[in-house]
């Protein structure tokens, strides 16, 4: 019988543009201190640490947690592209769930460079080889940033199928900015109109610049523990993980010449389905969602992959504002990757932090009233989709 895993402390730094942040270990320590303080425990009580980051030499995780303490505990470095943060979270969760540890610390951080994501190792097979081959077959390869071509191309495929307007994609960014204006930790706090979003430089039709998440530097952390540990520390009624699942690419990702499938639609759908089955909670029960809006097109696709709306209904879901306060469910109250920012390794834990704050009723101006159930979706090309259901009784 798996043990229940509680999230008893979260913390994150303000997300910054590249070049303006502290160094990675300083950001990680800042988020870590905040999470430990939030949990009300000492670092010495942590039995294992999981550190997620994508860009950096090996063992940055140790360097980061050494700023919290030199207690000799196991430290695991985790790299799973954009889903790195939630992958680290999952490993920590499994350690507690399986009875290996009582209390673990999970941190994600990223110090990114300016400009679009690219490949760092060009002397070997690119891990996205299969993905790029699908894209090349479906639409060729242009000089646009590769990730924008992939997700933009998926947007195009969706547009072709359902006739979705450019404005609809832009509306997702408009909503993200509006939500972020209430989040002091977000990178972009100012609102944008649909016209402004559409008028920004075209990156890869239908995506314009304001529909692409920015390279970001930041860190976020969480402290997980068992019920016994929580009890011992007098923590009652913590936010807990009701279910969590990871899915990786399946044959449909590469065999159907579909951009939508290539960017992880089926992975997300499968992970969500597993979570719904394990937790016994369905998409309609969810109050608040943090999902992986690296590009507006992916948020739109993810609504359907997670079952927040029916297939082909995303445009309606957006236009009718069912994706924000007063609608069916509030998506990305934090501002999401688009506005809060996307430091690759930190994102999965920043999503976790936002949901914990929301479920505890600590989200200030962006609080989703009466939120008790939160859903997290974090995806990385290459690929992995991690879906997590949080709950507070």
């Amino acid at each position, binding site marked *: 019988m798996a043990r229940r895993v509680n999230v008893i402390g979260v913390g994150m730094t303000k997300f910054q543009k590249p070049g303006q942040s502290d160094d990675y270990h300083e950001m990680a320590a800042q988020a870590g201190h905040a999470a430990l303080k939030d949990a009300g425990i000492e670092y010495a009580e942590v039995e294992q640490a999981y550190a997620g980051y994508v860009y950096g030499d090996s063992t940055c995780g140790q360097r980061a947690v050494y700023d919290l303490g030199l207690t000799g505990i196991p430290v695991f470095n985790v790299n799973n592209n954009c889903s790195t943060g939630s992958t680290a979270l999952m490993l920590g969760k499994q350690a507690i769930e399986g009875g290996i540890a009582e209390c673990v610390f999970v941190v994600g951080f990223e110090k990114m460079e300016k400009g679009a994501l690219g490949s760092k190792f060009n002397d070997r097979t*690119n891990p996205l080889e299969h993905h790029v081959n699908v894209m090349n077959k479906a639409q060729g390869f242009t000089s646009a940033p590769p990730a924008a071509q992939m997700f933009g191309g998926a947007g195009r495929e969706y547009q072709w199928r359902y*006739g979705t307007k450019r404005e609809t994609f832009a509306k997702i960014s408009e909503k993200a900015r509006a939500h972020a204006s209430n989040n002091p930790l977000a990178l972009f706090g100012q609102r944008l109109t649909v016209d402004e979003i559409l008028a920004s430089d075209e990156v890869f039709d239908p995506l314009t610049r304001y529909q692409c998440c920015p390279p970001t530097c930041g860190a976020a952390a969480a402290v997980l523990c068992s019920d016994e540990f929580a009890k011992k520390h007098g923590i009652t009624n913590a936010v807990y993980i009701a279910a969590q699942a990871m899915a990786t690419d399946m044959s449909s990702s590469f065999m159907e010449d579909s951009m939508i499938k290539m960017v992880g639609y089926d992975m997300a759908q499968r992970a969500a389905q597993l979570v719904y089955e394990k937790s016994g909670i369905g998409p309609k029960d969810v109050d608040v969602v943090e999902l992986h809006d690296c590009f507006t097109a992916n948020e739109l696709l993810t609504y359907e992959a997670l079952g927040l709306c029916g297939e082909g209904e995303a445009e309606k879901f957006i236009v009718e504002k069912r994706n924000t306060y007063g609608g069916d469910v509030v998506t990305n109250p934090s501002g999401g990757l688009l506005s809060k920012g996307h430091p690759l390794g930190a994102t999965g834990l920043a999503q976790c932090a936002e949901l914990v704050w929301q479920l505890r009723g600590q989200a200030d101006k962006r609080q989703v009233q009466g939120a008790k159930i939160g859903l997290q979706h974090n995806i990385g090309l290459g690929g992995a989709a991690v879906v997590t259901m949080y709950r507070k009784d």
Partner: protein
Amino acid sequence: MSSELRFDGRVAIVTGAGNGLGRSHALLLGSRGCKVVVNDLGGSMHGGGGGDATPAQKVVAEIKAMGGDAVVNADSVEAGDKIVQTAMDTWGRVDIIVNNAGILRDVSFQKMSEEDWDLVYRVHVLGAMRVTKAAWPHMRDAKFGRIVMTASAAGIYGNFGQANYAMAKMGLIGFAQTLALEGKKNNVVVNTIAPIAASRLTETVLPPDILEVLKPEVVSPLVAYLSHESCSDTGGTYEVGGGFMAKIRWERSQGKTFANGRPISIEQVQKAWGEISGFEKTSHPANIAESMQPVLDNAQKKSLGGNELIDCDQALGWQFPTLYSSYDQRDLMLYALSVGAAENPLDPKELPFVYEMSSSGFQGLPSYAATPAVKAIIDAAVAGQQAPGLNYGFERILHGEQYTVLHRPLPPSAKLVHKGKIKEIWDKGKNAVVVIEMKTTDDQGTPLFDNEISMFVRGAGGWGGERGPASDQNAAPERAPDQVIEQKTDPNQALLFRLNGDNNPLHADPNFAKAFGFDKPILHGLCTFGYSVRHAILAMAGGDARLFKSVRARFADTVFPGETIVTELWKEGGKILLRAKVKERDKVVLSNTAIELYDSVPAEKPAPAAKPAAAAAAASAPAAAGAVTSALLVDVIGFYIEKNPELAGQVKTSFQFKLSSPDSAFYIDLKDGKGKAATGELASPDVTLELSDADFIGMATGKLNPQKLYFGGQLKIGGNVMASQKLEFMKKLDGEKLMAQMAAEGRLPAAAPAAPAAAAAPAASGALTSADIFVAIGDYVAKNKDLASQVKTSFQFELTGPDSSYFVDLKSDPGKVAAGKLDAADCTLTLSDSDFLDMTTGKADPQKLYFAGKLKIGGNVMASQKLMFLKKVDPKAAEAAIAAARSAGGGAAKAAAPAAPKAMKAPGIFAALGERLAKEPALAGEIGAKVAFIVDGKEWLVEADQAPAKVHEGTANEAKAIFTISDADLVELCKTGSPRELFQRGKLRVDGEYLLAHRLGIMKGLVA
């Protein structure tokens, strides 16, 4: 705690365990559940007494008090079998032996008795052996044993007054090392400690305050660990004491390896002492095999031989540091004069060697090629850069033979790069021959010439080495020579010749010459050589020095300045045989000499692009640059793959290239085996790359970036796109060097073009071709409509190398520029392709080309002046036109008509669409809305919301959907009738109602 290391069920023997270290070891083992045989004779530290078991009994009592089990044994270790028997009798097994018992007989060697020596040996070494020997079979049978020997720093490092003890302790280390090897198979682990502890043995040696720190209790944990079943490290020696534990090992200096099979003198050892004894570079041999490795390595090397003057092992293959020099036209002319050229200044045959404005062009005398190479070697020697192992002085050497080969005619001036090595060393018995090879390129890496200089080293032979090739080749035939040329040298000939760079006083200073046994200064051998080669060129090559390929000459005797050189020549087989004599003394001075000629003049290196036009014109070497072709590049790539056989293992990918304009196909298969590049097609390549021939050349010569080509649409990649990144290896390809190498190996055709870098000027715009230039001229003519009425002349261009024909017809209005021939051009211009390029890009003056005979004008010569309009062509406009033509043609412009704008297909398509919708109203019904097209900026409206539907030009404002597409993609849409892919690729932009785009299939077939 479960992690405590226990010895439950184990039986240990600790010798000398009544006191000190042994007692401490026994107590620690006993405290952890080990059964212990506490052996002690009970004597004093000096070994007297005996029989007093009290200390051992005390230890046993202590172990038992801790709840352990132990027995006393009071036998001498020399009766080791009895000690082991105690263990067997009591517990039926023995697992651990700590050979600890010891004795001291410290005394200076001077006073040491044999008894002192023997006693120490018997207790430490013989005792340890006997105990171990008795236990060994039990341990082997049980497949478990842990043995610890007790050595000492005194043994490892030596200690004053302990010669006997040091001997014994070091003996134990060797003993243990071998037991470790022999016991390994049966899990019998043998280690040695070199402890330092306050014990009865050390009380006498160390001051009390230090003894305090050196408690036995801080040594025993290491002994216990080495005795534990969890420790499988064997054969180690550990220093331990005072809280410090460390393993020690052997360190060996890098050492010196002397050539195998050669005597080694004491002096050589002295000379190499730094290497033998220095620890700057070291290794740590851990076993016999590693110890032997340098010996075995050396045993496999066979010495090439040598003696004190010549060490072939060191010298053979030694490469000179790269040497640099240069020459200019003046140097060539001075050389020519110094070897007797143009003695008759009115002889037109010899003027080209000494006069830059000669009507038939300047030519460098090819024998000059030997001069800079020899000078480079002399300069290197003077600068102390000489091959190691050649230990003779200048006084022993004579220039014996000279071999010079030219890859192309000497440029009028060049910066030279010489790369040399010691190529051969022959043992001619009494004497030796050392052959230096010197390969010379220009500073662009283009191979110019190679030399082999054979030095005859007097008295340096006789080591029994190889004699080398027979020396009678190229002997002069018996029959009378086919040609004979006689020429008298001047009495001051050597003074003139030395200005070429050989400043040896032997050729100038009468006293110096006398000291060497000559009546007067002698002529340089290379001067005689220059005379005779020149004679051969005049007599056998029609005076055309460019046909010269190679000469191999032997210097047989000296010539004195003022003597007459008689050059006898025979045409024999494919070569010219030559013998030179001094007429006055009838002595052969050049023997066994042969000259080879090329059948036709090899391609010369073009003048560097940066050269000012005037200078280029003055340098009248014909600039017949062969263009780099894709076929040649495939050869080069193939050559590179051949030379880098590991490449296939790294790249593991096959690439198919399909080139267009002109079309060709080749592949680079690095999937398996050794890899291959060849023309043709692979059955199933991993990646297919389609691009124009010109773009491929640009890419392969590093001028064009494959990624940019790809994103610019000039390079199409099929198959595994990511694998195309592996083409990176092509960046490492040094085309010039490879071609130089290929030329050297005779892998390039004789008329091979120059290296890519040299040929591909101007770099900025990729390889500009004459076709490009005509596109630019066509563009200019099209833009300047009044030109034809002004010029009123038709020009025919006949270009050579590669051959092509173009005309510029400004006789008719409008003017026309195209490939091909006019029926009756006013004026025909014949010149080489590269001169045409130079002329039209301002690098060469047409007038100078004309006067240099490189531009031939037929028909109305004066009309050619009207070509001056070419000077007005705006280079930027030309570039734009070329770029436009290239992108349209997918590469370098094809020979093309004036770049008139291509007619749009859209008007025809929409007219046809109008007709189709009128005929089939149902089709219009499928759309059922007003839609608009914007094609390259022009707008069409399709009013399909009414019957009959109408198609016409008009603004798109009122349309429900607007389709933005290029004319070319519109054609594509009409061909395929499939808008989806165009949309996904971003070639079809949709505004408004996207789903209306699904209906665009109605366009299918609207173009033929």
